[in-house]
């Protein structure tokens, strides 16, 4: 008997018990759709992070005060206790490192912004006029402040869209006055909307002021926590990192066995770390979903075993009228594969549908992974073969005389 006929026979047998076939498939449907949906969520998160990293640019370096790890004690970057990064350091970097094109410090402060009778608590960042270029983030209306604003510590603000929306409710913020710690600041620009970052934080809830202004008029301290440095090209990033480290060690008069009192990180390190976290999450999600696929497979085996016992007489009839053991074995094996593959296909449909629905319902980005689809098809065929083999062998081993007599 050829394969086509065996497949026909297997389909016929399944059609005779549609309800059971459907319920058996359900396990695989849920398993496969879970794998597809989970991998889509994971890949979506990864893609978002990647897109963000790409938009920031791979030639970006972070220089922060304080070491990441000193004598086994982790002191956070930008720790309030460290004074190891100065404006002079940054000037030196700009001047002496040839592979660096731009530098901007970033002084972090939180504060209350007041405009008329509205107020808004937000993050105020003291940066240089090169910030939009370094971070590849431009202004939408108005202008970013200039180098003369930085020199004179002018009281100017460039606000993110969230602040513009909340303090001015649709009115043009340019030229308006915002009070910070009772000092009036003039709004000179509004940044382009950036949306949420990969962690779901609102990136538009930020206001920029010259770092000199932040140091002198808001914080009252010359401390720098972090600086963004642009290398001349993505390829020059590593060289720049080396040279900055060397320069800062010299300037800080560190001995060769002293640890760094600053940290230089590049974007690709951060990207790699983020990707690794995301891959781990994706793997974890896929594994959990895979477990449900395995449970679905066991469901198939269970039903196939019941089916073999229940259909002992049918097997006897088939053997008596000339079916070889191999034909019976193939029939049951193919029934099992048909169950798992049909379930797998429905599972893919459901998984793709939920991957499309999740961004709308939950707001999580998803990216449908072709590999997950192909992988789950292959996996469901394997589940069918693996869990169908034992029941099929049991059916084929039956003796026609006993099977015919079975009540």
């Amino acid at each position, binding site marked *: 008997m050829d394969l086509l006929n065996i497949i*026909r026979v297997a389909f016929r047998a399944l059609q005779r018990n549609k309800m059971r076939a459907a319920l058996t498939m359900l396990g695989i449907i849920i398993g496969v759709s879970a794998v597809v949906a989970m991998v889509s969520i994971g890949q979506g998160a990864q893609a978002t992070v990647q897109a963000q990293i790409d938009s920031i640019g791979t030639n970006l370096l972070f220089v922060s005060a304080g070491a990441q790890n000193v004598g086994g004690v982790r002191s956070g970057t930008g720790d309030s206790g460290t004074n190891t990064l100065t404006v002079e350091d940054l000037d030196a970097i700009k001047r002496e490192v040839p592979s660096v094109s731009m530098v901007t410090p970033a002084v972090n402060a939180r504060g209350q912004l007041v405009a008329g009778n509205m107020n808004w608590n937000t993050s105020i960042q003291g940066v240089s006029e090169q910030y939009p270029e370094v971070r590849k983030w431009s202004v939408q209306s108005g202008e970013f402040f200039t180098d003369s604003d930085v020199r004179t510590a002018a009281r100017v603000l460039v606000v993110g869209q969230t602040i513009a929306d909340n303090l001015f409710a649709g009115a043009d913020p340019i030229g308006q006055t915002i009070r910070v710690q009772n000092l009036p600041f003039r709004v000179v620009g509004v940044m382009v909307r950036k949306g949420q970052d990969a962690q779901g934080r609102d990136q538009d809830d930020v206001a920029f002021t010259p770092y000199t202004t932040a140091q002198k008029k808001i914080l009252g301290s010359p401390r720098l926590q972090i600086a963004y440095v642009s290398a001349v090209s993505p390829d020059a990033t590593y060289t720049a990192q080396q040279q900055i480290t060397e320069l800062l060690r010299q300037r800080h008069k560190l001995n060769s066995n002293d640890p760094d009192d600053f940290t230089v990180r590049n974007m690709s390190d951060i990207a790699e770390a983020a990707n690794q976290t995301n891959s781990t999450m994706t793997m974890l999600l896929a594994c959990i979903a895979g477990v449900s696929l395995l449970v679905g497979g066991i469901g198939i085996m269970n039903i196939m075993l019941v089916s073999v016992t229940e259909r002992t*007489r049918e097997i*006897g009839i*088939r053997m*008596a*009228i*000339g079916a070889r053991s191999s034909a019976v074995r193939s029939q049951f094996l193919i029934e099992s594969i048909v169950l798992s593959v049909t379930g797998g296909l429905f599972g893919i449909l459901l998984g793709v549908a939920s991957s499309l629905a999740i961004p709308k319902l939950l707001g999580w980005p998803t990216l449908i992974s072709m590999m997950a689809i192909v992988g789950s098809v292959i996996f469901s065929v394997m589940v069918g073969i693996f869990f169908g083999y034992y029941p099929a062998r049991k059916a084929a081993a039956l003796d026609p*005389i006993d099977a015919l007599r079975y009540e």
Partner: protein
Amino acid sequence: MQAIQEITKANPSIAGSIEIPQTRAVIQLDNIHKTYTMGDVQVHALRGATLGIRAGEFVAIMGASGSGKSTTMNIIGCLDRPTKGTYILDGQDVSELSKDERADIRSHKIGFVFQGFNLLARTSALENVELPMLYAGVSGAQRHERAMQSLAAVGLAGREQNHPNQLSGGQQQRVAVARALVNDPALILADEPTGNLDSRTSVEVMEIFQRLNRERGITLVLVTHEPDIAQYAGRIVVFKDGKIRKDYPVKDQRDAAEELKNLPAIEADEEDD
């Protein structure tokens, strides 16, 4: 061949008692032993049975339970192998064949009719009849045509799409006969085919057997414990204690077609099932 059948029909006493060399033996059992081992106990189901059945014969095998008739039937049907002795079916020694080889023999040379009909449930009559051809590797178009012919031969034209639960017992058994016929076997083996049927339906089924035997010369082996059913055969073989006790031609063979004419027509009720 035709002439011999004419003779045996005209004078049933000739069949089985006289060796007719022109007719080759379809079944030749030679000193068949069958021993089952059940735990430590050896059960001798057959203790040297020798039996020849020629083409075109209609033989009834009788005997009490435990007499060895079921074992003989299983061996004749190539469902089982003898422990000792040789079995030649249609010119081929089948006593030493493997499981798969026996499946092929069953597929091509033997048609089975069982007491419990043994049709596949939730499967149309047509598909049930097509099933043996599926395993024999007959092409799709031919399967359909031959199944239709076979169903028509047992008087079930127009019932092809009915499922077994939509058919009466007699009709189901006729589907089983059509299924047994469809691969054009050398032998049809019927195991208590009337065991689940009322007397009228039994006569109907026997009429089909007699007709197939007479018109097509199909060799029939009927296993039964009902003496009146055995009377429709041309020859009776009686088993006792694993051996053949009696082997004689039937005198006054019953003619099912004749009897049906004299029975009141209740066919209409049955068709309404």
